[in-house]
C-alpha cells in the first residue's frame, strides 16, 4: 500500500487527471503489456507461447495445468493446451537458452526409476524356448503340491499320525500327486 500512496502524487502531477496518465506513459505501458504473462500479469519470464498465441511464464502455466489436470485449457481463450503444445521463446538477452519446460519448475514427482535387473527369469531364459517350456511344465505339479500342503496348514492343529484324519490327508495328497503325474504324462504325450 505504501508504494501506491507514494506513486499517487507523482501521477497526479504528471497529468491533469490522475486516472488518465499522459499519452507517452500510456504508450510505454501498452508496449510492455504485450509481453506480460496472462497469469501473473508481470513481464513473462521463461516464456512459452501456446498454439492459440497466448503468452505465459512457464512456471505460471505449469501451475495452472497442475491445478486442473483433467481440464487442460488455455487460461485466456480456453483452447486445448498442454506441456507438449507450447513453444518456448528465446530472446536475444540470454546467451545459453534452455527450454524452460526442462528447467522450471522441476519435473513433477512420481517418476520411478527402472527396476534393477536381478538376473531373473526373463533375461535368463529369453530366446531359449525349450528351457522355458520344460520350466513351465515342471512348475505346475509343484503348485499342486503346495496347495495340498496349504490345505493341512489351515487346520487348527497337526493331525496325529495314525488318526483317521491323518490317513485321510495322506490319501488325499497321494491322489493329488497321482493326478499331477498323470497330467504331466498327458502333457508329454500330447
Amino acid at each position, binding site marked *: 500500500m505504501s508504494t501506491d500512496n507514494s506513486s499517487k502524487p507523482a501521477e497526479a502531477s504528471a497529468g491533469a487527471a490522475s*486516472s488518465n496518465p499522459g499519452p507517452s506513459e500510456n504508450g510505454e505501458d501498452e508496449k510492455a503489456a504485450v509481453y506480460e504473462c496472462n497469469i501473473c*500479469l*508481470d513481464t513473462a519470464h521463461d516464456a512459452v507461447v501456446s498454439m492459440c498465441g*497466448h503468452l505465459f511464464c512457464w512456471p505460471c502455466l505449469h*501451475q*495452472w495445468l497442475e*491445478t486442473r489436470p483433467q481440464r487442460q485449457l488455455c*487460461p485466456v481463450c480456453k483452447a486445448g493446451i498442454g506441456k507438449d503444445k507450447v513453444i518456448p521463446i528465446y530472446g536475444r538477452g540470454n546467451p545459453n537458452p534452455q527450454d524452460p519446460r526442462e528447467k522450471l519448475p522441476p519435473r513433477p514427482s512420481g517418476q520411478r526409476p527402472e527396476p534393477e535387473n536381478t538376473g531373473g527369469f526373463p533375461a535368463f531364459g529369453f530366446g531359449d524356448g525349450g528351457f522355458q517350456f520344460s520350466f513351465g511344465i515342471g512348475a505346475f505339479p509343484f503348485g499342486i503340491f503346495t496347495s495340498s500342503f496349504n490345505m493341512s496348514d489351515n487346520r487348527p492343529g497337526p493331525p496325529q499320525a495314525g488318526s483317521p484324519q491323518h490317513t485321510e490327508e495322506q490319501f488325499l495328497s497321494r491322489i493329488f500327486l497321482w493326478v499331477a503325474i498323470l497330467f504331466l504324462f498327458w502333457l508329454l504325450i500330447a
Partner: protein
Amino acid sequence: MTNIAEARIRREFKEVVKSDEVAACNIKVELVNDTFNELRGEIAGPPDTPYAGGQFHLEIKIPETYPFNPPIVKFLTKIWHPNISSVTGAICLDILKDQWAAAMTLRTVLLSLQALLAAAEPDDPQDAVVAQQYKENHSIFEKTARHWTAVYAGGPKSYPDLDSKILSLKTMGFEEHQARAALSSKGWDLERATEYLIN
C-alpha cells in the same frame, strides 16, 4: 498469502482503478486491509433491468491459490435474483466455479456479475424460490426485484402498495426484512405471508 496472489491483486487493483468502467461509475474495488486477501467490490445495476439505479456491494476473498483458483465472491447488498441467494448473498456463476480461468481478473469478474444481473439463468438457480417466481410469474418477479433494489441498493423509489403490505406485517410485530422476504416469496399475498411467518 503467496507472492503471486498478492502481486497479482496489486496489479489488478491498479487496472480496475484505471479502467474506463470506473470512470463511468460502473464497477469499483476497494481494499479492506493491507494484505490484499480481502476486497470490497461494487457494481452498478445494469440499465433497463429491475436493478437499474442500484449500487450492489460485494465481498471478495482472495484464496492463497489465486489466480489458479477463483476469488470467493458474495453479495453484501440484499438482492432478488434467481442466481443469487436472497438470504446469504451466495452466487451461482460458472466462472466463479469450474469455468474459472487463471487469466480472468477482478475486472472480468465484476463485469460478469453485472452481466448476470442483466441476464439471469433461472435453470441454474441459487435461490429456488426466486427462480420459480422468475419463470412462473415474471411480472411479480420484476416488481419484487425493483422493490429490493430501491430498499437495499438505493434504487429509485417505487410501489407504495408493496410498502403498505410490509407496514401492515410490521404492525403485527414482525421485523421489516423478515416481512419483506416472506411477502416476496409468497407473491405479495398478505394472507399467505402471514401464515408463513407464523409457522
